[in-house]
């Protein structure tokens, strides 16, 4: 799993591609943990090239969201979610846990 990290003035963009499932979710978890351990709490997850997201992946994002939102110090937002992934997120009732943006510029600009 390739994970790209891009630092902006007020936020960090995390980007990966393809499938996020039980086989590689631990790598994504580690990437988020490294960021929050360094005090980065404004995080954009760029999903423009993610075409599959299992519950193991969502749990990584929920866990990161819990950490970031503590003490109102930041949050994880999502950008460029594939429509089918968005539909499934709404269906299981988890879309309320994340703000979602149609493009990276808006997501980065939200901080």
């Amino acid at each position: 799993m390739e994970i790209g990290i891009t630092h902006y003035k007020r936020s960090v963009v995390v980007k990966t591609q393809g499938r996020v499932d039980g086989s590689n979710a631990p790598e994504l978890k580690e990437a988020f943990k490294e960021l929050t351990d360094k005090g980065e709490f404004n995080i954009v997850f760029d999903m423009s090239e993610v075409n599959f997201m299992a519950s193991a992946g969502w749990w990584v994002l929920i866990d990161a969201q819990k950490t970031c939102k503590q003490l109102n110090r930041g949050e994880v937002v999502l950008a460029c979610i594939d429509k089918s992934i968005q539909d499934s997120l709404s269906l299981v009732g988890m879309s309320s846990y994340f703000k979602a943006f149609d493009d990276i510029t808006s997501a980065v600009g939200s901080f």
Partner: protein
Amino acid sequence: MRKRTFPGRLDKLADISLFVVQAAEEAGLDDSGVYAVELAVDEAATNIIEHAYQGEDRGEICCSIEVNRDGLKVILQDWGNPFDPKKVPEPTLGASLEKIQSSGLGLFFIRKLMDEVQFEFSKEKGNTITLVKRRK
């Protein structure tokens, strides 16, 4: 009915997905329906590896698919520990972020995404989960 057997390993989840996605597309499901089947089967296969077999490379997952006039039926079979869905706590989604627990999230996804879900266990056949998704 088409059938394939996969090693019970997390790096084989993508192969299982490919197998069911092809059938879901042939069954005429729309994009969200195809994705729902892919996600539900992935969650079920992950549960088999992590809970029924309690680790990778401890057994196989047999995947049978029937495309019918209503949509698609997927049957996953394993020979691991008996699975009792009643023992899996349901996550409290809709609850505040702090209270949500990861336990049972996969099973919750499966039930929300599919039109029918059925679990069976027998000594001869092992665990069987049947997932049905209908065309809209």
